[in-house]
């Protein structure tokens, strides 16, 4: 104990430490790999049961991938904040005066990393289960779409996850608040993915305007979250 007193803490340091911490917890607890990923895969299989038509499945594969992603996002976000709320760690971070913008960015990055892995698995599942075909020209579009959509989903999820973290009835409130907001991501990412898959006769070039929408969405909610996260988690 060489002396007392606070040292200045930068936002980027808070974000980095928090993202590392969240990912380390997920790697160790294996809840995401052992429960969330299988859940998402199960949803994909259930869609196939419900639609029961190979032509229809390959036509709507893009939408099903993103729907499964949205359902999993709800679980991922709830899990991300449950880890912090269980023993008052989120409050400890607040009490310690950590910059809320740093907490927001850090948790969003951790959610993003988990989502990207999930989406890769779901797209693979679409190729295998729904028999969609992906050409090389579509790969660049698909990767860009996944990056932009994931960023937007993670920012919105973290924003509303923080708001509902300590609240009663958070399990039901989070989807009610979050799903209407991420509707543009569902629409945009689905159209872009369909273009990448060229399902329904879509051309790969049709997908790029949608990637633009996804990018704008991600930027808007990144800024919104950085500005407002402190107000939302504050008592």
């Amino acid at each position, binding site marked *: 104990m060489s002396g007392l007193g606070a040292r200045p803490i930068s936002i980027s340091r808070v974000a980095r430490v928090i993202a590392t911490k969240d990912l380390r917890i997920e790697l160790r607890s294996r809840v995401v790999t052992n429960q969330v990923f299988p859940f998402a895969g199960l949803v994909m299989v259930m869609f196939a049961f419900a639609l029961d038509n190979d032509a229809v499945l390959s036509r709507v594969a893009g939408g099903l991938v993103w729907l499964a992603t949205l359902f999993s996002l709800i679980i991922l976000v709830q899990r991300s904040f449950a880890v912090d709320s269980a023993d008052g760690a989120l409050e400890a971070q607040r009490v310690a005066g950590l910059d809320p913008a740093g907490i927001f960015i850090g948790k969003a990055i951790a959610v993003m990393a988990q989502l990207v892995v999930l989406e890769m698995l779901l797209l693979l599942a679409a190729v295998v289960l729904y028999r969609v075909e992906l050409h090389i020209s579509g790969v660049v579009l698909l990767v860009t779409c996944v990056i932009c959509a994931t960023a937007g989903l993670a920012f919105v999820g973290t*924003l509303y996850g923080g*708001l509902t973290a300590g609240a*009663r009835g958070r399990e039901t409130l989070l989807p009610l608040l979050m799903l*209407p907001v991420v509707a*543009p991501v569902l629409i*945009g990412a689905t159209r872009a993915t369909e273009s990448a898959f060229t399902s329904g006769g879509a051309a790969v070039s049709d997908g790029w305007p949608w990637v633009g*929408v996804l990018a704008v969405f991600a930027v808007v*909610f990144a800024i919104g979250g950085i500005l407002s996260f402190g*107000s939302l988690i504050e*008592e």
Partner: protein
Amino acid sequence: MTSASSTTTQTFTAKVATPTTRLVGAMAIVSMAWVVLGGLFVTPSDVNQGDAVRIMYVHVPTAWVAYLAFIVTAIASACWLLSRKHAMGFDRVAGASAEVGVIFMAMTLLSGGLWGRITWGTYWAWDPRLTTTAFLLVTYIGYLAVRGLGGSLEQRARRSAVIALLAVLEIPLVHFSVLMWRSLHQRASVLSGDGDIKMDGSMLTTLLVGVIGFTCTFAWLVMHRSRVLAMQDAVQSSQLDAALQDRASESAGLK
């Protein structure tokens, strides 16, 4: 303490009805009566749509009021965040306006669905304006749920103001993405002038009176609702005074 509570009681009774609310209320009643008479009896039915066109006298004003309500909520929320003293009046207006707006938005969707069934043959179409309106409804139901989360008045005001402003970011994004997705709504007939309804003078007048009447109704409801909310908040803080006194006597008794 008794003097404090009696003054608050007096302010309440004085505030229940002011000349302004009476005037707005009277205007609402008169113009609503005009809309009922004009809409059902005076105006002609449309060449193409028949009597279904009469739904317009309710549908257009409720839609206008619903959007107005959410603009008021957004502005009041911004005012609360920006005002240095964080005056709770702004928060109550934001909450009252959103509550009324949700009801009017539901009426808009209902009347629009009925009209669509008669005219288009379908209750619902995936059109940008319809879809955005439906999302707005869900978003503000969520907003009201956030207001009900509990906690201190300041916490409620801060959270809900942020959510209201985030909704202002969200709605254009939803609208734009649905617009890009597809569009088949008929263009607004009053604004563009080349729609399929040929508006004669009495129809236009009735529609405008409807807009005025529904706007007055909205204003009247919001004013009264914010007063009720003010009373609820005041009851909370007068309970605080009483509780403070209780605690003081409790600690005196224990000394």
